[in-house]
């Protein structure tokens, strides 16, 4: 290969290894294997989960060995770093050559050294120019013509930039990796949980760490809509207002797949829930008797008449599209405890062990959890994505073709083409 001519000086062993394709294939397969571990072992869970799943020995080994966050552990980052070095080395090694080759047009001289495919001779009295032009046009499309020392050369080349394709792909890969690193070090990521009507001026970047927002965000309203009772959720929607120094600056609606940008940060609808704002009021019916019950959340309440105990465990503003509901745990004085949902708009479901529970009121408020993020690396990553496409096209779908026809007048005055 011509590349060896350019680097005529003896190359160090390290450089040879770094630019070797064997390293590439090896590292790719290692990365694949390590990534498999990451999908089999649950990632980013607390230690006691691993102890429970794998037992003391294995659990601690996985935890201590970094296999519980394997994509951020040396097991993954080292081969990835090696791959990066490998890619960089290959780019340094071959890019100048590829650029030189791509920008060198096929010249008459170079054409003379192309392998010969055939030879045609015309009789002395025939001028072949017209015929050649037509056939050339029909078979190869427009081309160029050069004259070189009495020889006429027809030239056509295609896919001259093909050698750049692989380099575009690999530079794109480096951009994506760079984007990842930039995001890791200069990006911010966190969450903000807002009660309906609540205002936040900070967001959580970890369980105990917060960051200021430099503005305020207010959740005006959260809504969850279903396609119908018992059907799938249709929309989670947070109506937000952004404020600066108490002044309303802008309003926006944040939905899944429709993030909101403000003040250099992006807000994504991540999760939601409902919180009880007061005790749940139930009506307990037994035959013709009826009793009112007041159930504060998570406080066991003795039922009148020795029927047992009841705990309200959770409220839901719109339980599977059936409207407000409360999750009740009922422990009868005899028999097994029951856990069931009581629906405000569907009293027909509230029957348990001869008792009926009707929901009178469920005071609740929604809260919405928004993912907050700024990632300056995203544009690097997207640039990489965009570069991939021409790179793949050039590398795989644009074969290099060089055609030349050399027309010479022989000593006998005949035209000869080859």
């Amino acid at each position: 290969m011509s590349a060896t001519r350019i680097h005529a000086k003896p190359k160090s062993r390290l450089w040879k290894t770094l630019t070797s394709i064997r390293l590439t294939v090896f590292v790719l397969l290692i990365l694949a294997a390590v990534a498999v571990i990451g999908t089999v072992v649950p990632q980013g869970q607390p230690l006691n989960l691993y102890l429970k799943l794998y037992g003391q020995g294995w659990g601690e080994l996985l935890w201590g060995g970094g296999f519980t966050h394997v994509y951020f552990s040396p097991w993954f980052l080292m081969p990835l770093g090696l791959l990066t070095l490998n890619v960089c080395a290959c780019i340094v090694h071959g890019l100048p050559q590829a650029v030189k080759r791509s920008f060198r047009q096929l010249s008459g001289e170079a054409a003379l050294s192309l392998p010969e495919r055939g030879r045609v001779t015309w009789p002395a009295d025939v001028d072949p120019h017209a015929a050649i032009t037509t056939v050339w046009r029909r078979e190869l499309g427009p081309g160029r013509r050069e004259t070189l020392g009495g020889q006429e050369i027809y030239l056509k080349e295609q896919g001259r930039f093909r050698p750049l394709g692989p380099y575009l792909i690999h530079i794109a890969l480096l951009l994506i990796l760079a984007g990842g690193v930039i995001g890791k070090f200069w990006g911010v990521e966190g969450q903000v949980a807002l009660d309906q009507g609540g205002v936040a001026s900070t967001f959580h970047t970890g369980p105990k760490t917060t960051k200021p927002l430099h503005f305020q965000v207010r959740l005006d309203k959260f809504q969850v809509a279903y396609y119908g009772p018992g059907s799938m959720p249709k929309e989670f929607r947070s109506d937000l207002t952004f404020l600066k120094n108490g002044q309303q600056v802008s309003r926006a609606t944040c939905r899944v797949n429709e993030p909101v940008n403000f003040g250099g940060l992006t807000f994504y609808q991540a999760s939601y829930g409902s919180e009880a704002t007061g005790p749940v009021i139930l009506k307990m019916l037994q035959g013709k008797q009826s009793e009112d019950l007041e159930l504060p959340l998570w406080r066991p309440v003795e039922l009148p008449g020795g029927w047992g105990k009841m705990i309200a465990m959770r409220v839901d503003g719109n339980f599977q599209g059936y409207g407000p509901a409360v999750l009740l745990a009922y422990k009868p004085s005899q028999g097994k405890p029951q856990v069931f949902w009581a629906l405000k708009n569907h009293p027909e479901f509230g029957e348990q062990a001869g008792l009926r529970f009707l929901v009178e009121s469920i005071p609740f408020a929604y809260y919405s959890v928004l993912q907050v993020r700024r990632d300056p690396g995203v544009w690097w990553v997207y640039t990489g994505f965009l570069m991939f496409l021409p790179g793949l096209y050039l590398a795989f779908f644009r074969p290099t073709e060089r055609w030349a026809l050399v027309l010479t007048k022989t000593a006998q005055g005949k035209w000869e083409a080859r």
Partner: protein
Amino acid sequence: MISQLFGAVMLIYLLVAICFLVAELWASPRLQDVGRAMLWLGLGVHTAALIGRWVDNYQVAALHTPAAGLGATLRLIVLHAPLANFYESLIFFAWCLPALGLLAFRRHLRGYLGALIALLSTLLLAYASFGVDSRIKPLMPALKSNWLLVHVVTAFLGYAAFALAFGSAILYLIQERRPRPSLPSLPVLDGLIYRTTVLGFLLLTLGIITGAVWAETAWGRYWSWDPKETWSLITWFIYAALLHARLLKGWHGRRIAWLAVLGFMAVLFTYFGVSFLLSGMHSYLT
């Protein structure tokens, strides 16, 4: 009505597979032609059935969310392409195989290779019809994105291209052991493996890229090491290794064929294994 149409398509593909097998065993070029004609017919009916499913999806969606204006209607149409659940992904995958096969293999899509592809499509359709919930369900919020169409189409065309590479690789390995003059020669099969792998690699890359851009708008992260993402990356690594080995190390033939088989195992795991064995953000498929 539409599901019966898919049943008919399944039968046609089964007949195609039988036809190609018989044609190969009896060395009958005429039966090969019949098989190909039937494959085209099956693909036509399959396409019609997919469009029918799309129309049904749209009508159900229009009941829930009546679209006002041309723009909203178009968006509703794009959103309700039949690509939103496991059943629909199966019937689309089954469509990709013969469609891409006819495109990439041209006249080589006959005999054992044709039978293998037709049989794979038959199995996918059979599984979709008998083992999977086929009811039309409204779209959940996470899937309401214009990226859905392009992400799923590129991903599954990629899977299909790798399936074709797998088929050629299997045939290569058989042909190497017991050569049959009526089957494509080893260099031809080697070329087919390479061509389909390149196609699949391009499509898988596009699938991963569109998925990343979509994840960025939906979850605020272009990459979150979700098992499906990770497995698609593993698959990508394997095929990248294959292409490097072939283009730069000059690997050919058997070793490339085995790598194509390994790659397709990873594809199958990315599609089925991740959905059934691992949980993650793509779990709405099951």
